[in-house]
């Protein structure tokens, strides 16, 4: 690397990379029609900027400069490679070279980011690959960081990304924002990826840490980007609200030693009230749209919890009502289990127990630790200690997460005394 680059220019470029590189990449993918070519082009553009801006000064529109320099560099590369027998079609080169001035206007560029989101979350790519691609291309995480966050080997993630990109190329997956009639389904896929990233960060499925903050933060950033680009989509609003409301309890959710703290035992002064206010506001906006779905309803439930000043103040009838709507919109055994807990709070543990037994008798969630944890809690409150112990033991056998294991062991020990 060049040693004579002045440090302010390097800082400018670093900041530009951090803030603009995803926009530049998204546009280059559209102009060049290929992920790898676009990544090379962007890399070249930043490398050239380092020397050229030193000499000529920073251009007035750095983003447009990076896009057009990257594009020229890519065309140049395609032409050279043709010389060595790589089969770039003339047509492809011609298409890449014909750029309109509007191609780098702000509006088109915002659309490019939306195109990138929909392409990374395309349903013909496996969900695992959608997640990896989204985190790398949109959130700018490195392959190694994605691997670390999901406790995978970097080589596994790297291949997943390579295969997903070939799939996009070979299956001619179009780089576009879906048409209005396809939008609900395609948006559903995008929201699913974002929620999965959030949940992986919020409650890591394995390992010793209860939460992995970076992933939750990235998911919230993606959620914000999505509503910036699609401000009228109520489920996008609902998902962001849901994530903010859950995340607002982050500091209260784990004790200093890493132990799990249940909702009704949390120190509410540790909750992030700014996030709660924002989440509640977004929930209201989504609910008022009239065509909300399960994310908005989950956010509404989270908002009822977050807005109550203590557990006794929670309107459990309202929560049960929201779960009824949620189950109506989206039949899910996990939502049924949560409804059972709310019903128990409204009508007593006996009622909750009946609902959980019903779930289990249908063969639903009988491998899910929280089913037995809920059942154990109902037994405990009913004074049925022996049954409670058995249920806690079941829950323990099914959970791999350390803080949850410690919590269940603690409960079990309390019962034995």
């Amino acid at each position, binding site marked *: 690397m060049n040693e004579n680059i002045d440090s302010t220019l390097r800082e400018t470029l670093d900041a530009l990379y951090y803030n603009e590189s995803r926009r530049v990449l998204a546009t280059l993918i559209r102009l060049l029609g290929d992920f790898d070519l676009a990544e090379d082009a962007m*890399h070249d553009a930043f490398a050239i900027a380092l020397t050229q801006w030193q000499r000529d000064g920073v251009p007035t529109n750095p983003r447009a400069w990076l896009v057009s320099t990257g594009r020229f560099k890519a065309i140049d590369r395609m032409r050279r490679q043709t010389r060595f027998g790589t089969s770039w079609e003339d047509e492809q080169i011609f298409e890449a070279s014909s750029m309109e001035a509007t191609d780098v206007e702000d509006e088109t560029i915002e659309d490019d980011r939306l195109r990138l989101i929909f392409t990374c979350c395309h349903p013909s790519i496996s969900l695992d690959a959608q997640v990896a691609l989204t985190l790398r291309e949109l959130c700018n995480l490195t392959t190694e960081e994605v691997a670390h966050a999901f406790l995978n080997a970097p080589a596994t993630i790297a291949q997943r990304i390579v295969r997903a990109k070939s799939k996009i190329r070979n299956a001619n997956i179009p780089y576009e924002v879906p048409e209005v009639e396809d939008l609900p389904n395609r948006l559903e896929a995008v929201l699913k990826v974002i929620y999965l990233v959030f949940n992986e960060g919020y409650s890591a499925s394995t390992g010793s840490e209860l939460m992995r903050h970076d992933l939750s933060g990235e998911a919230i950033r993606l959620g914000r980007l999505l509503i910036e680009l699609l401000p009228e989509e109520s489920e996008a609003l609902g998902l962001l609200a849901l994530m903010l409301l859950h995340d607002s309890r982050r500091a209260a959710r784990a004790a200093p030693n890493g132990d799990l703290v249940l909702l009704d035992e949390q120190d509410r002064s540790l909750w992030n009230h700014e996030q709660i206010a924002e989440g509640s506001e977004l929930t209201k906006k989504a609910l008022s749209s009239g065509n909300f779905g399960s994310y908005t309803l989950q956010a509404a439930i989270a908002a009822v919890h977050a807005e109550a000043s203590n557990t006794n103040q929670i309107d459990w009838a309202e929560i049960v009502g929201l779960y009824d709507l949620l189950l109506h919109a989206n039949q899910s055994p996990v939502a049924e289990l949560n409804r059972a807990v709310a019903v128990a709070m409204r009508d007593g543990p006996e009622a909750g127990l009946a609902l959980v037994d019903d779930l289990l008798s249908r063969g639903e969630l009988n491998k899910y630790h929280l089913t037995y944890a809920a059942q154990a809690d109902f037994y405990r409150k009913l004074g049925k200690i022996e049954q409670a112990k058995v249920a806690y033991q079941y829950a323990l056998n099914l959970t791999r997460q350390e803080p949850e294991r410690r919590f269940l062991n603690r409960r079990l020990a309390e019962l034995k005394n």
Partner: protein
Amino acid sequence: MKYLCLICAETVMEQMSAVDAEKHFEEYREFTGNIRTSGHFVDCNRLLPPIAAITVRVRNGKVSTCDGPYVETKEQLGGYYVIEARDLNEAIRVASRIPGAGIGCVEVRPIAEDVQTIHALRIAETG
């Protein structure tokens, strides 16, 4: 992150016709020039064919040697690049443009950058 790219092929330069070898060298000239400009380049070298190799072992203080590489395969190690890349996928992208990847294959290996390794090998001191 730094990555080592090991280039393996069934045919090395010495076994090519003069015309093919000249073309291959030209491709390497072009590729190496490109990655110097892009900032990916750290180091590279071409190796003489495996027939020139000697494998050395020391057991109980006794040195023994044998001809050839330590493992016989049809693919021969012909050269390497050390590159600097943002992540493994960027390294794969660069490696895929190494001319040898189109003939044989390229193994991409992350170079260890943990404190213990850096300390033990004093990489920082030599730059």
